[in-house]
């Protein structure tokens, strides 16, 4: 039955996280935006302790077949919206397995999942990161130049990765790891690209830079250089073979079907924060939004607000749909890309319009609205730009391969 009501379990989780967002994140949001490279350890430790004791929230995909109804992805989506409503930068800074963990969960063997992921249930806070982007390639991930060469019982990795979320924390500041995409055979194109787990402290992996960003400043974004970095042979995710097909590449790309709705959820949380801020300002000024009145009679302000509302809700419903499909075990590449594309568009539209509508209040650093606009923008870019997601949607609806539609 079509239904838009969250189950009581998910609603409880949402309320719990909302409390954390309101009481632990909002009060420190401005401070850690201004003090970009400092970490809010009280908050991070608290979230680490909470996540270790809760099995409800998860950030990874899984190769395990679904048996019976699951609400794991819906729960994650709702949780991420709430955390991002609190503060998107702080949310990304939370110690967790992240994208790196998601890759291990999606493409690793049971032994690898144990070796690399068990650490997230015990001990001190840890981070894992995913390193794909290079100075010369982002969207065109098949053009990766980082290499991994077999040498006896090891792989030797060379290359430079940029824009690695939580890269500093994962590579150097915790007992975490970085999943690096590197090619074992450049001539094989996509089929030669593999993912390798590089644990913290591995000689040859160095963080050379932490970026100064437009937004999500509480999250560390790192440049990591790999120079003759040796990792055990068993640290490769998936098969080392270079097949005639692109199975391995596709396997890790499938991770994105799970993570794109998650990023969409984050965008929606930011957008909602901005929308609520505008609504409160309008309420204070005694300005009503008149649903049901002929459009032509509405003020521009009302129309803009309704436009923001409808677009944000559309993004939310698309994201819920993609998450529900994951829980149902349905392939959802099209729906995941739709949710990410729409959410990126919506958060950009909503936050940028919100700053405009609130004039000097929107522009001032006394309020968080201008920060939400800065935080929101990245959602249109990382985890697949809006343009790439539109390309994926186009390929799916046209039934075209990437060769047929580039």
């Amino acid at each position, binding site marked *: 039955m079509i239904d838009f009501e969250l189950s009581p379990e998910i609603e409880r989780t949402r309320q719990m996280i909302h409390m954390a967002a309101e009481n632990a994140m909002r009060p420190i949001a401005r401070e850690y935006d201004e003090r970009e490279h400092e970490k809010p350890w009280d908050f991070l430790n608290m979230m680490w302790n909470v996540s270790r004791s809760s099995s409800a929230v998860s950030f990874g995909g899984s190769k395990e077949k679904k048996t019976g109804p699951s*609400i794991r992805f819906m729960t994650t989506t709702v949780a991420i919206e709430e955390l991002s409503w609190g503060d998107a930068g702080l949310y990304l800074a939370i110690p967790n397995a992240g994208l790196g963990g998601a890759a291990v969960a999606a493409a690793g063997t049971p032994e690898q999942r144990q070796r690399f992921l068990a650490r997230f249930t015990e001990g001190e806070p840890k981070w894992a990161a995913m390193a794909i982007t290079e100075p010369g390639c982002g969207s065109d991930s098949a053009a990766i130049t980082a290499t991994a060469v077999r040498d006896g019982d090891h792989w030797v990795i060379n290359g430079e990765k940029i824009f690695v979320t939580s890269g500093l924390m994962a590579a150097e500041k915790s007992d975490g790891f970085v999943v690096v995409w590197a090619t074992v055979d450049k001539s094989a194109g996509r089929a030669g690209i593999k993912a390798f787990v590089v644990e913290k402290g591995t000689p040859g992996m160095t963080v050379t830079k932490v970026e100064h960003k437009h937004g999500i400043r509480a999250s560390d974004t790192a440049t990591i250089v790999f120079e003759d970095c040796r990792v055990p042979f068993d640290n490769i995710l998936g098969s080392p073979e270079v097949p005639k097909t692109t199975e391995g590449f596709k396997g890790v790309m499938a991770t994105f079907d799970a993570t794109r709705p998650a990023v969409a959820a984050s965008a929606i949380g930011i957008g909602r924060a901005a929308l609520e801020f505008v609504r409160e300002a309008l309420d204070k000024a005694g300005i009503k939004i008149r649903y049901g009145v002929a459009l032509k009679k509405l003020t521009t302000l009302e129309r803009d607000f309704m436009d923001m509302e409808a677009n944000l809700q559309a993004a939310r419903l698309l994201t819920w749909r993609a998450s529900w499909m994951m829980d149902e075990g349905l392939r959802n590449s099209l729906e995941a890309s*739709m949710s990410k594309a729409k959410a990126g568009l919506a958060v950009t539209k909503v936050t940028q319009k919100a700053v405009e509508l609130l004039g000097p209040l929107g522009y001032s650093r006394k309020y968080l609205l201008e920060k939400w606009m800065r935080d929101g923008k990245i959602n249109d870019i990382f985890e697949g730009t809006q343009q790439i997601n539109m390309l994926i949607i*186009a390929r799916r609806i046209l039934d075209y391969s990437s060769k047929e539609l580039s």
Partner: protein
Amino acid sequence: MVSFQPSEEQQLIRDTVAAFAKEQIRPRAHEADETGQVPSDVIQQGWELGLVLSAIPEAYGGAGDTHSALTGALLAEELAWGDLSIALHLLAPRLVAYPVLEMGTPEQKERILAAYTGAQFCPGTAAVVEPRFDFDLAELSTTAERSNGSYVVNGSKCFVPLGAEAAHILVYARTDGREGYEGVSGFLLDKGTPGLKLVEREKNMGLKALETSEIVLENCRVPAENRLGGDAGCDFAKLMNYSRIGLAAMAVGVARAAFEYARDYAKDRRAFGVAIAQKQAIAFMLAEMALEIDATRLLTWEAAWKLDKGEDATREAYLAKNYAADMVLKVTDNALQVLGGHGYIREHPVELWLRNGRGFAAFEGLVMV
């Protein structure tokens, strides 16, 4: 628990109507538009599916199904995908039957519903929109004033589907000078009521096959017992929410028809050595069309679901309808654009879908779900 899966019964209805739309409606759409006539045999076949007024209780001769706006939205989308004029014609009886069903007095249900439970399609309708550029549901110009045991109705209405032939017309008017949606009542007029005049069959940009009329009420006396709901009146806002949801769903149907046609054309048409669908400018237009159709459908479903739960869905239904009107214009316009010069020629249906698509911004109260 959140779910996007229609019930088995809903899926069956959807599949049945989709097949009917594809096999019976769509092949007749072009001729209907060119000749200005909805084919009556298609209407009768649609009627015989038994889905238009299945919500009429058995006591009044109906199937007694539960009334569901969500199911109505699923059905309306598929019919509109076939052809908007034919779909609106087939669903027109709901415009009078559903309000009576939900808000009528027992006497009104007794008197009116029976006409719509027969083996033959019987036209019924409602008069909502008025012929002024700044028409506003919250501020109708048509008035009804109490005068002894009657109401005297004055005003003009346009976009009345099947206005000439309808057995009953439910006319909405601002009553006794009261304001807003709460001040609106519905008046059940039989065909041929003195003071109810048919002005003319309208000529519209789209909906050419659908008979819509302009009517005028000149000191039209309506017995008080023909006021919908009697002295209790009716919930006009809620009725307009049903109609907003229906229109939004139909906009999705029209848009989807246009998108699919443009997509198939773009895969076939070659330019610069490849199918034009292989060019990003075209591919991205199609991708945006697909995305916005899905987005609109979900907004519409959510509004319908909320209404079915018995909650006030004014905000959701209003937002969904407006979003849908913008979306269907953009999608149908882009579909015509994808076909280039060929899109401009009436042999292809995309220009019809644009003519119909633009109408949603002005349409109110043309369908109930």
